[in-house]
C-alpha cells in the first residue's frame, strides 16, 4: 500500500465519498480514471490510501512531488451519521432521552480508507473491526486505536488480534449483545460485505464495484438490489443493509 497526496484547490468531501483519479504524464493507457475513497485531508492536502494492484496504482507509486494528476469529485453519497452522532448531540441539547446507537465499523482491505473519515468524525465512539491476512496487512493501527472506542484487529493467521476475518471478529463481539444497539458501517470486498450484511445489524455498506465513469452515465458499476440494478457510483457507493443482494 502507499499514500498518495495531492495539493490544490480541493472541494470538501464527506465520509463514504470517492474521487476518480487519473495520471497526466502518459498516453491513453491506462485509459480510465480509477476510483479511490476520500481518505483524509491534512491542511490543504488530500490524502488517498491505496494498494498497488495494477497499472494505474503502479504508475501512482512512481509519481513524485510536482507531477500532475487529474481528480474528479467528490462523487457518490455519504455514510449517514445523524442517528449516531448529530441526533445524539441534539438529544443532549433538547434533553430528550433518545437511545443512540453505537457505530459498528467493519473494514476489509482498502475498505479502511472508506471508513477512516467516518471514524475521525465520530472520535472515540466506534467499535472497529478491521483485518487482513497477516499482521503486516493491518495498517494504521495506532491511528485507528486513537480514533475508535475499541479497535479489534483480525488476521487470518492470527498473527495480530482475532484469528479470523473482521466479520468473524464482529460476530464474536456481538455474541450476547443486542444487534439493535449498533449501527453497521462496512466497506470491503463483496464476500465481506455479504457476510457483514448477515450479522443482523442494520446500517450501511459501501460497495467497491468496478467503475468506468464514476458519474452515473455508463451503467458499468451495476450492483444488484432488491429494486433491480443500481449504480454503485451514483446511487451509492453507500447502501442500506438489506438493499444490496449478493449471489
Amino acid at each position, binding site marked *: 500500500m502507499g499514500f498518495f497526496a495531492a495539493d490544490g484547490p480541493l472541494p470538501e468531501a464527506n465520509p463514504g465519498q470517492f474521487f476518480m483519479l487519473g495520471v497526466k504524464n502518459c498516453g*491513453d493507457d491506462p485509459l*480510465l480514471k480509477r476510483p479511490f475513497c476520500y481518505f483524509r485531508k491534512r491542511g490543504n492536502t488530500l490524502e488517498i490510501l491505496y494498494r498497488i494492484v495494477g497499472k494505474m496504482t503502479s504508475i501512482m507509486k512512481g509519481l513524485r512531488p510536482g507531477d500532475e494528476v487529474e481528480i474528479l469529485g467528490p462523487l457518490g453519497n455519504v455514510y449517514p451519521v445523524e442517528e449516531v452522532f448529530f441526533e445524539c448531540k441534539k438529544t443532549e441539547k433538547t434533553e430528550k432521552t433518545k437511545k443512540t446507537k453505537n457505530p459498528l465499523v467493519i473494514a476489509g482491505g482498502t475498505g479502511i480508507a472508506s471508513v477512516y473519515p467516518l471514524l475521525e468524525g465520530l472520535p472515540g465512539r466506534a467499535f472497529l473491526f478491521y483485518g487482513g491476512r497477516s499482521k503486516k496487512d493491518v495498517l494504521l493501527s495506532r491511528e485507528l486505536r486513537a480514533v475508535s472506542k475499541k479497535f479489534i484487529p483480525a488476521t487470518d493467521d492470527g498473527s495480530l488480534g482475532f484469528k479470523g476475518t473482521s466479520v468473524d471478529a464482529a460476530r464474536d463481539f456481538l455474541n450476547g449483545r443486542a444487534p439493535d444497539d449498533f449501527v453497521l458501517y462496512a466497506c470491503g470486498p463483496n464476500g465481506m460485505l455479504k457476510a457483514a450484511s448477515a450479522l443482523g445489524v442494520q446500517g450501511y455498506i459501501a460497495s467497491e464495484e468496478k467503475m468506468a465513469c464514476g*458519474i452515473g452515465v455508463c*451503467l458499468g458499476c451495476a450492483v*444488484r438490489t432488491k429494486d433491480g440494478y443500481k449504480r454503485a457510483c451514483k446511487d451509492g457507493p453507500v447502501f442500506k443493509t438489506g438493499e444490496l443482494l449478493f449471489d
Partner: protein
Amino acid sequence: MVDRGNKNKKLEVRIGGLKLKNPVMTASGTAGYGAELAEFFDLSKLGAIVLKGISLVPWQGNPAPRITETRCGMINSIGLQNVGLDAFLREKLPFARQWDVPVIANILGTSATEYTRLASALEDAGVEGIELNVSCPNVKEGGIAFGLNLKSFAGLIRAVRKKVKNPVLIVKLSPGAPSIEEFSRAAEAEGADAISLINSIPAMAIDVNTRRPLIKNVIGGLSGPAIKPIAVRMVYQASKSVKTIPIIGMGGIITGEDAVEFMLAGATAVAVGTATFMDPMAALKVVEGIGSWMERQGIKSASHITGAMLSDIRRK
C-alpha cells in the same frame, strides 16, 4: 427566432433537416438521458444529445462485471439496461428536452414491428431524431441480426421510414456488417437521412489470475481510442459509398483533432462516447478543439472539413 447559444455559426452542420450548432453529439449509452452530464456543463453547447438506447419494455441489463479496461479501450456489456418506452416518455424525455439542443433517441427492438412502434411513439412525442441501433453486440435481441443481414437490414429501414416523417432517421451500422459499403448504400436507398458508425466491436478479455472472463457475459463491446483507426476507415468507406446522406462518425474520439480526423475521412458530425467516462467534459472539449483546429487551419466552416482529406489516393 433568437439563435441562443450559437454565436459561432462557423461550427454549424446539417444532418438531414436538422441544423446542429456544431458537429458534436453524445454517443448513445454514454450520456444516459442527459441529467448526469448536465451537472458538469450546459448541454445546449453540444450539437445534439443522443440518449441511451430504449426498448418497448424495460430491460434490466446484464449481471456484473459489465466493464473492463483493455489497452487504450474498454469492453462493456451493459445489456441495454433501460427504463422502457413508457417511463422514457413520461420521465426521461421531458427532462432531456429542457436544453436548447436537438434530442435524438436511440432505439432497438427484437422485430421490425417493435422498431416501428418505438419510432412512431417517439415521432408523436416530438423527438428531433431517431437512431436505429441494429448493432448492439450485447444482447441477442439487440437488433444485431438486422445489422448483419443485408435483406433484413433494408427491410427494417423501409418499415420504419414508412412510419416516420418528421424526425431525422439515423441508422447505426454494425462494425461487423459483412460490407460497410453495401450496407451504407442500402441505408441510403431505403430512405435513411444519415448513417452513424461505429458501434462497439465484439471483444473479450480474461483475467489470467482467476482464469475467469472479465465480463460476466464473456463477450462485450470494445470502444475507445483502440478502435479509432478501424472506425475512421469504416467512416471513410461509408462516405465513399453513399450519394448524399451525411455520416456521423464515432469510435474513440477523445480530442478535437480526433473528431477532425473523422470529418476529414468523410463524417459530417461525430459522437463522443468512452471519452465522457474519462472526463465528463470531453464532448465540450471536442467542440472547442474542432474550433481551434479550424482557426489554425484557416477553415471557415465545419462543413468544409467533411471529406477534405488531401491526396486521397484510392487503393489500387
